[in-house]
């Protein structure tokens, strides 16, 4: 299999995997928190939070990418923060992770939110009665009962990250070995007359990754033991 791939394609594969996985895992804690907040609480500004979360879904990816460029670029408002952290996002894979996270976040949050909404409050009450402090109620009751939502949400985010193109290429460009994921490489191949063969190969790679993710998701779903 590997021999069938050019080094460039192989690099793109690894990069896609690395970026999508990192993005999904990094989003997860925040996604869980937001999904939970939206599902269980009414608070002032809930509407605004909801809107903000859905922004990247509604805006064309180019705009999202442009927004990221303005926000996280060297003249952006977070400049000092990132400098202090020693984090540089421009033109590297970390930037691609950010782009993927932003773009796939709404999908993750909505799945998780739906799952939390379906958790029976009466079961959470039981845990409270038996002395579980709120954090323990959350981790031992709410979260496990929202399991399918977590899985679905992560799968959606991972798949969306794998397919992420517009925001990434706008934010961190398409540098082979650094930010050129499968979709970007694929796009490049489509721009060259006669690049279809390689494009098809990359397409199939994407699909294989996605199938693996789906297979994995099915396994994990089965673990749900209601």
């Amino acid at each position, binding site marked *: 299999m590997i021999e069938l791939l050019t080094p460039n394609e192989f690099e793109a594969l690894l990069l896609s995997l690395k970026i999508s996985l990192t993005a999904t895992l990094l989003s997860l804690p925040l996604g869980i928190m937001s999904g939970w907040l939206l599902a269980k609480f009414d608070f002032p500004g809930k509407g605004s939070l909801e809107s903000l979360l859905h922004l990247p879904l509604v805006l064309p990816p180019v705009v999202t990418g442009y927004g990221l460029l303005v926000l996280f670029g060297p003249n952006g408002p977070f400049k000092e923060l990132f400098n202090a952290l020693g984090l540089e996002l421009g033109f590297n894979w970390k930037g691609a992770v950010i782009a993927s996270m932003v773009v796939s976040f709404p999908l993750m949050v909505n799945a998780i939110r739906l799952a939390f909404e379906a958790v029976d409050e009466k*079961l959470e009450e*039981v845990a*409270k*009665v038996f002395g579980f402090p*709120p954090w323990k*109620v959350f981790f031992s009751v709410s979260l496990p*009962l929202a399991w399918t939502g977590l899985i679905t949400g992560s799968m959606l985010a991972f798949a969306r990250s794998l397919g992420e193109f517009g925001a990434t290429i706008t934010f961190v460009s398409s540098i082979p070995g650094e930010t050129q994921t499968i979709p970007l490489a694929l796009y490049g191949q489509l721009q060259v007359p006669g690049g279809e063969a390689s494009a098809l190969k990359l397409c199939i790679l994407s699909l294989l990754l996605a199938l693996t993710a789906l297979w994995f998701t099915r396994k994990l779903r089965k673990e749900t033991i*209601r």
Partner: protein
Amino acid sequence: MISANLQKALGPLNLDLNFTITAPGITVISGPSGSGKSSLVKLIAGLNTPDSGWLNFGGKTLYSSALNTDIATHQRRLAIVFQEARLLPHWTVKKNLTMGQKKIESFDKIVAVLGIEALLSRKPKHLSGGEAQRVALGRALCQKPELLMMDEPLASLDEERKEELLPYIKALPKKFNIPILYVTHSTKERNYLADTYYFLEKGKLTMQEKSTLTSTKHPQHLQLLSKVR
């Protein structure tokens, strides 16, 4: 010691609870369906916030609208047998009983008296109605709470099992030195268990004299019973 003065409007029902339980032992609460018994349990547990009033337990103020105090449920040190079993579906029966605690005193005893030895490794989904209720009862018995509340804990058990459990429950207050609030419709259970007996009707609690315990409030029962037997 529990003393309370709590008000809560529930749809058309105005709960107005005013009681002091000084004696240890079992306080039985009866009353027609919809009179507010389960709601009373929830109010004491802090699962429902009263509209006004106060609630003291063992010298602590658990709730007071005047003082703006409202101790969170998980700090009230309770155990409840809910009217529905409310088992956690993702845990085995065993974990539901221990609620994740490592050591449970007289765990084997409790399991034995409830007859649930064979169920320990099952998931709640595969339990029968009575089995689930027994596990829910066991869960409460495994705790060492400062107050134990039971909402018709024996309703769906067979009579044999009930007869076995009643003496066990009756012995609990002395054994662990805790008060029990016991909600039931059954005259039999009430007569056997009650140290104090309250009757709840249309949201109002009335203490019943000890002497009324052996007779029954509703002559109609006797009438029918005589017909049946």
